């Protein structure tokens, strides 16, 4: 029998708690497929965020640690410096990475830490039920911007890839989207490039994934996917922001 599709070895049997249409489950699967394909499951150490993906260690079938809210890049730094031949990645949401953990992500990139970061940008705080995130779009309604994000009052969204691209320490930065099949395939390709960047010791890599939170966006999964393509990607253009080929 020819097996065309099966569960990656890097995922456990556990059923996730994610809502229907949530991007987290898709991204977990893509990471697991990449880890399997690169044959690095037994030397990978993941860092789960505080956010909806807080239980990531239940879903990945390799070593995963917890980290305090926003601190995965610092924890990853400690792990990678002690075990330079392991593959270390941090998994973070936009509150985790671009609000409470802004200092940690900027400095991990500036130091050129040879780690990979999977940054799930869903433009909202999922776990705490829908408050404004640093990536919430102008005009967007959340539970703390009930009349819509007013940039003159709430400030502007942060474009993380563009910000980190200014740092000499970052080696590979790409923004992708989960609003289309091509986008999902492209996201997997980008995650693989990020892990390869680490394997080849080229330095800091990050993939920012525009991802759906249908529950807090108050959209159906299909509407949420369309919204990523037609609205979110306008403010956060997908593409490669940095790709340095040489070893650091």
């Amino acid at each position, binding site marked *: 029998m020819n097996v065309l599709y099966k569960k990656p070895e890097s995922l456990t049997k556990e059923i996730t708690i994610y809502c229907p249409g949530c991007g987290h489950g898709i991204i977990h699967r893509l990471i697991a497929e990449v880890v399997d394909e690169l044959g690095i499951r037994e030397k990978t150490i993941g860092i789960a965020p505080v956010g909806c993906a807080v239980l990531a260690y239940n879903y990945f079938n390799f070593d995963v640690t*917890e980290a305090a809210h926003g601190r995965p890049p610092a924890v990853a730094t400690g792990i990678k*410096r*002690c075990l330079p031949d392991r593959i270390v990645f941090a998994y973070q949401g936009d509150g985790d990475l671009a609000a409470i953990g802004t200092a940690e992500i900027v400095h991990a990139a500036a130091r050129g830490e040879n780690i990979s970061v999977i940054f799930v940008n869903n433009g909202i705080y999922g776990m705490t039920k829908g408050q404004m995130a640093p990536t919430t779009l102008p005009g967007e309604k959340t539970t703390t911007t009930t009349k819509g994000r007013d940039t003159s009052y709430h400030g502007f969204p942060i474009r993380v890839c563009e910000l980190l691209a200014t740092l000499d320490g970052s080696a590979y930065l790409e923004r992708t989207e989960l609003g289309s099949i091509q986008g999902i395939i492209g996201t997997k390709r980008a995650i693989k490039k990020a892990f390869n960047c680490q394997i080849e010791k080229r330095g800091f890599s990050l993939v920012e994934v525009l991802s759906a939170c249908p529950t807090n966006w108050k959209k159906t999964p299909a509407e949420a996917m369309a919204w990523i393509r037609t609205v979110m990607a306008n403010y956060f253009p997908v593409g490669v922001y940095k790709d340095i080929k040489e070893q650091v």
Partner: protein
Amino acid sequence: MRKVLLTGCEASGEGAISAGCTFYAGYPITPQNRFTEYMSDRMPESKGVFIQAESEIAAINMVFGASLTGARAMTSSSSPGISLKQEGISYLAGCELPAVIVNMNRGGPGLGDVTPSQSDYFQSTRGGGHGDYRTIVLAPWSVQEIYDLTYLAFDLADRYRTPVLVLADGMLAQMMEPVELLKTKKRLPKKNWTLTGCKGRKPRSIKSLFLSPGVLETHNWKLARKYQRIMEKEQIYNTYMCTDMDILIVSFGTAARISSEAVSMAREQGIRAGLFRPVTLWPYPSGVLNKISEKAKKILVVEMNCGQMLDDVKIAVRNDSRIFFYGRPGGGVPTPEEILKEIKRI
């Protein structure tokens, strides 16, 4: 045994290296800048990792990462920086990860000043961070003891899988004294809980999150039993001139060292004074203090703060009317003469 002249910061760093520490992350703050500077040279020299972190928050979380790989890891700071580390210390305690944190206490609250102080006694012994946990707290009174206790801190941290604090102050951090160095530890304890990649075994996780009903309660009781074992086994204290004593001074760290001189001066004048010095501030040697204090007519607690260890003396002695306090907060350092005056006054 090799004898060298070191500052307190350097001695703590050397104690860590002798104990097999291979990871240091820190952020500059007076009066422990020398610590971070010293480790920036000494860690690479001893094949360890040094990182100047972007903040104390990052530093403690780097230590968290290093510790979960099995490395002996540490950070150092002074009071405001230790406040920032508290969330990380709480996570270390919850995740049962060993680590050593050195505090060269300066005056507070707020930015306070940069002079020696013992004002972080409550913060150190009462948890500091959130949640139901304890940290072992070791309080040296000399540069030699900073070295010895930092060394010991790593063994205790590994034995109990828990963060250990060394609480010194700005004076001990900066003064120089001769230190006898031990041989660098070669054989470190084996750890069967680390994250190193799951080759040849089932995947593991490190976590402090327990959402199912009752599971966190069970976890907290497990921690509580561990703390109970520490209380039973790890109390350290010193006594000086306590066999025939009327007036008992209770003091720790720098204040104890100055108090010991005051005791000698009192003895020369025929006053029967003695000194009890807790070296572990948690677990506090309450039982022994209670026993020793039975003979004392009066008890004088001397601290460089407004009266914090005083609470623990009251818990241990249970007879408030005999207890007096002499304190110097905000960077004040008492002289032996001033303490002697207090001994005579009470």
